[in-house]
């Protein structure tokens, strides 16, 4: 495990420009004392797709939620696109603008139409004109294949459609990184594919993505690297072919035996 050098990095110390996320020795304790992350390292490069796998409770969600400060951490350091995550609220807001997130439960705003879901944040946060955002939102809805549902409410859409709206909503902020936390885990099997297809297209457009998923096929076809987490630690980082055919760690092998 590399030794963390916490809080020496400041926002002015810009790392090499192709590193989008640089997490070093991240440790987190939940308020109840549970040690959820026990020193995790991960570097994500620009345009890269990183898939995180691992058994339930291994800390995958906790880890990627530290990248946009939805969870705090006690030790180590995280730098996102040159901005060091600290308690400084301005840094947190700046990072959240640049990092999009797609949740397992979609978390669409049920009181707004699909179009308003997508338009809300760019207008409020980026102070862009409504007309311009609206145009972009419609284009994005087109891109994820649900332009004709723009005036419906989330409750009237299927799970797969809702998740595609959530992706469009994240994209409309023009983030530099997209985080996905098990985006297909609460979908019926027939809807999983439509969401994965959208994600695959994003990857083809060289959008930086960190994806927590159990979809082996997606990981094999789309990921540049696969990360295995277990018991709050990063056990292995490898290219997908190597990871799935010939993992270097015993723990990875056991995990693959269970899911393949």
């Amino acid at each position, binding site marked *: 495990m590399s030794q963390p050098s916490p809080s020496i990095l400041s926002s002015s110390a810009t790392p090499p420009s192709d590193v989008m996320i640089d997490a070093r020795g991240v440790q987190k304790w939940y308020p109840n004392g549970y040690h959820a992350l026990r020193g995790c390292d991960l570097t994500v490069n620009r345009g890269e797709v990183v898939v995180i796998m691992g058994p339930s409770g291994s800390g995958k969600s906790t880890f990627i939620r530290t990248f*946009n400060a939805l969870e705090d951490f006690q030790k180590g350091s995280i730098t996102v696109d040159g901005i060091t995550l600290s308690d400084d609220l301005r840094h947190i807001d700046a990072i*959240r603008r640049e990092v999009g997130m797609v949740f397992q439960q979609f978390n669409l705003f049920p009181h707004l139409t699909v179009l308003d879901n997508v338009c809300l944040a760019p207008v*409020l*946060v*980026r102070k862009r004109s409504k007309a311009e955002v609206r145009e972009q939102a419609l284009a994005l809805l087109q891109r994820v294949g649900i332009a004709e549902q723009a005036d*419906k409410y989330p409750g009237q859409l299927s799970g797969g459609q809702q998740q595609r709206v959530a992706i469009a909503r994240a994209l409309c902020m023009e983030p530099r990184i997209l985080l996905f936390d098990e985006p297909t885990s609460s979908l019926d099997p027939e809807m999983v594919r439509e969401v994965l297809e959208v994600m695959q297209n994003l990857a083809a457009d060289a959008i930086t993505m960190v994806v927590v998923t159990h979809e082996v096929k997606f990981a094999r076809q789309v990921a540049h690297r696969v990360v295995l987490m277990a018991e709050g630690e990063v056990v292995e980082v490898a290219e997908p072919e190597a990871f799935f055919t010939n993992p270097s760690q015993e723990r990875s092998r056991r995990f693959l035996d269970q899911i393949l």
Partner: protein
Amino acid sequence: MNPLLRRLRHDLFATPADGLITLALLGVIGAGASSFLRWAFSQARWAVIQANSTLFAVGRYPIDQQWRLWLLTALLAAATGITWGMLRSHPRPDRGGTLWPRNDRIAVGLLVALSLLLPWMLGLSPSVQLRWLAITAVLVLLRWLAGRFGPLLPGPFKRLLPLGLPLLYLIGMVLIGGGLGLASVSPSEWGGLLLTLLQSSFAILLCFPLGVLLALGRRSELPLLRWGSVLYIEFIRGAPLITLLFLGQNMLGFLLPGGLAPERVWRAAWVLTLFAAAYLAEAVRSGLAAVPRGQLEAARSLGMSMPQAFASVVLPQAMRVALPSMVGQFISLLQDTTLLSLIGLMELLGTARTVMANPAFLGRNAEVYFTLAVLFWCCCAALGLGSRALERRLDPAAIARSG
């Protein structure tokens, strides 16, 4: 068989036991109604209401200044008509052709009938009868105009329209109390329904932001703010309103330096507001608790600041959940204004008590109390109707279903 008869038979006389119950209930209802009608039309002497109708409406408001209240009533009618019409004209293609849904037609019919019958029954002079009719005409006309042409208004104008309501409230305050060139009418001269509505609308409007702030404070991460809110809410909820009203009359004078202590009427209004805010905070809190955590997380992950996330994501959803219990609070607030008579204010009940104390109307308590009950029922029913309309608009799923 006639379908109506068939349905009646199916609903009321499906089995012999049902039939018996129906007959028994019909008997009870019939007996009750007939003795009420006998009282209302032969025993009751409604002169007490006729003679005091102005007193019940506005208390001892100076007669030469009452035109201001007429103007305010007309403005309120206009605002009601416009709001009603705009709500109906909401550009929803699936609602085509329902500018005048059945319930609206019934409501207009009732309004016109009331404005014709009530002033006549109260024995008001023909010119005053005419005034009520004109006010109703304004309401209905604007309801039609806003429903018909509202959608054609330019967008920015439509968005600014709701701002007219708080503006109207301020105008109303000036009209009632004076200022800006109008002769001042001291609050001690306000009374009757006017005072009841003033007190309750003031408290309802102000307790709302206060209650939301308290509810947010109760969930805050700052311990001082959290404990302060909890203490306040629990203290107020633990004390009977009447003691707080007396406390307010006695204590606000000490707390605020000399001239700043508000007039008695305003003191009472503030106590009502602060009282209602504690209850409202609890309603809002249950609404906030019903919004899943993921909503705030999604908003924050899109870069929204905490105030932005609350204002556009969390609160609108919480309000929808909290609305029914909030309206319940408002309705009991309206009824609680009767307690103000105990601290000597001449609101509806206080006015009623002075009327009943007048030897000329000795023994006419039943008529007075009955009128009071009907008046309160009307106000509460109006609140309930308004809230149901609001609830439907805040619930996109219901809108979608109705489409």
